[in-house]
């Protein structure tokens, strides 16, 4: 199968969906020449730097029969638009009794690791997950990126697509043409039996690398990528933990009230999974600081393979594998 980058996969998804459905329109603060050329500047809008306004415009156009794909740029800039996200998009359907659908997709990039410092290195998915009313995707491979973004655009609800910056240039196999990855279905990226490690976005890759390393030592990790954060496929994660009895969650958001906290709560409140737990769960998250600029500090702030390994060893020490 051909290999294309994460970014190319996302671009393809949008172009294919625009081709497929004339009601799909695109709004962003940066121009998209290829899209503009193919679909015209009516459907491909570039906007002033007015995130609040164009977030609401996407919602209003969705409620009026279109399927806008709105790009915030970095997730950082979505905070300027947070009223439209929290008070409008996440509530509009339910609050009005389900009268209308709002098929709008909000896209943005996330994450640190590129020396762009505090404001431009954020991974605040959990703030959006907390809002009952938004679906949330967070792909980790080009294949998933294309398939999930297509599902998001076809979904009849507001969906937020978080697109990890450190994955932008990563390449991987992506079939030509149309396919989708369903929302709400996690994927076991590597099967194993000693420890369940749930990774998010960039940290799926890092966790797979750790899994390969540790396999050499005879430690078998099961690596799970939720892919969709809302709806969360809790059952796939729980089923894995019921087999391994151990859980580590890896992500680059700070731990407090994070997606990692949520995954832990989903696992430990489920009676059967709780009974199967042999060791305390572990979060491998960012330090509780705004991401610092200086490379050695930034490295210290974010998770990495050695921190993942250390957490895996901790859960194994606390409940050694029976030989």
């Amino acid at each position, binding site marked *: 199968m051909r290999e294309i980058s994460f970014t190319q996969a996302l671009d393809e998804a949008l172009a294919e969906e625009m081709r497929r459905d004339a009601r799909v329109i695109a709004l962003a603060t940066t121009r998209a020449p290829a899209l503009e050329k193919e679909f015209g500047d009516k459907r491909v809008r570039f906007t002033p730097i007015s995130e*609040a306004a164009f977030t609401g415009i996407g919602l209003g156009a969705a409620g009026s029969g279109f399927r806008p794909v709105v790009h915030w740029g970095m997730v950082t800039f979505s905070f300027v638009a947070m009223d439209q996200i929290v008070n409008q998009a996440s509530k509009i359907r339910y609050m009005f009794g389900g009268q209308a659908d709002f098929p709008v997709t909000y896209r943005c990039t996330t994450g640190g690791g590129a020396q762009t410092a505090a404001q431009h290195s954020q991974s605040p998915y959990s703030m959006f997950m907390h809002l009952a009313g938004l679906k949330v995707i967070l792909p980790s491979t080009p294949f998933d990126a294309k398939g999930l973004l297509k599902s998001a655009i076809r979904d009849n609800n507001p969906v937020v697509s978080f697109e990890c910056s450190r994955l932008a240039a990563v390449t991987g196999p992506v079939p030509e043409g149309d396919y989708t990855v369903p929302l709400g279905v996690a994927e076991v990226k590597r099967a194993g039996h000693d420890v369940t490690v749930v990774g998010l976005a960039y940290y799926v890759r890092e966790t797979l690398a750790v899994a390969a390393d540790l396999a050499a030592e005879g430690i078998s990790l099961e690596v799970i990528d939720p892919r969709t954060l809302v709806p969360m496929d809790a059952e796939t994660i729980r089923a894995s933990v019921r087999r391994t009895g151990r859980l580590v969650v890896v992500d680059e958001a700070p731990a407090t009230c994070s997606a990692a906290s949520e995954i832990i709560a989903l696992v430990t409140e489920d009676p059967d999974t709780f009974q199967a737990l042999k060791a305390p769960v572990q979060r491998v998250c960012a330090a509780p600081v705004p991401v610092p600029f200086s490379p050695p500090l930034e490295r210290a702030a974010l998770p990495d393979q050695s921190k993942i390994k250390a957490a895996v060893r901790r859960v194994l020490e606390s409940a050694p594998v029976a030989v």
Partner: protein
Amino acid sequence: MPGEKADLVELLRQMILIREFDQLAIELRTARRIHGALHPYVGEEAVAAGVCAALRPTDRITSTHRGHGHCIAKGADINRMMAELFGRVDGYCKGKGGSMHIADFAIGMLGANGIVAGGMPIACGAALAAQLEDAGGVAACFFGDGATGEGEFHETLNIAALWKLPLIFVCENNRYGAGNAVESVRANPEISQHAAAYGMPGVPVDGNDVLAVRDATAEAVERARRGAGPTLLHCKTFRWLFHAMRDVPPPETRSADLLAAWRGRERDPIARFEDHLSAGGVVTAAEVLAIRDQVKRALAAAVDFAEASPYPDPKDLLVDMFAD
């Protein structure tokens, strides 16, 4: 007398209905038969009625926390509105929204909104949709004087002007944002002056003159339909009553003189229009009485409708969350 008789009488009827609806709502709320917060539109009826008279049923609007008047003027069913205030399953939002969140997408009423200025970008999205549909549709957004303090107002002005969207900005300047007079929160009370910086017409309008509002809107609509872009209407009116009530209407803090000046027959948007129509021979006193009577009966029926409707079943709590 410009306009067809039937249209003029309908305008009068609408304004009376809007006022009576909200006065009844206050009674119902004081008697604790309905719930939540209430923001009466009394005194401002000419704005909603005048604006919506210049719109087509397929045109779209967004509204504010003070939204009953906009709903009625856009053609909403008062039975379903009342049922919503009662929190019943036959309400517009099946009881999920209440007074501050009534919407009727079928008639282009895209929702009241509890966030000051929050509906403006949404209306702008509806205007974008209208432009893309290219069938001559327009959108209008109602917002208060207080909303001009919010960034969303300004951002929307620029984008609408830049893209020449068919959007009518309807500022309902009722002189107050909650407890604060407009002069105390704006450096310059003349809100229409924001338009100039966007190359957009900014039009001060007597917001208590329903025909002036209708005509100014009609001009803005005409402009919008021919692709010439948005207009900012600054409708100057007055909030007769309190900002909001919960269990009891809050005490009046404004001077009796001021209130009297605005509530007098020459300024009251309804009495004034009634006088204007009777002076022009369009309606008789008897006809007005008949309208008032019909409105009262319709409202009584709406209360009956609402009370006959069941509360939503708690088992349906999760229904309407996500579309398929």
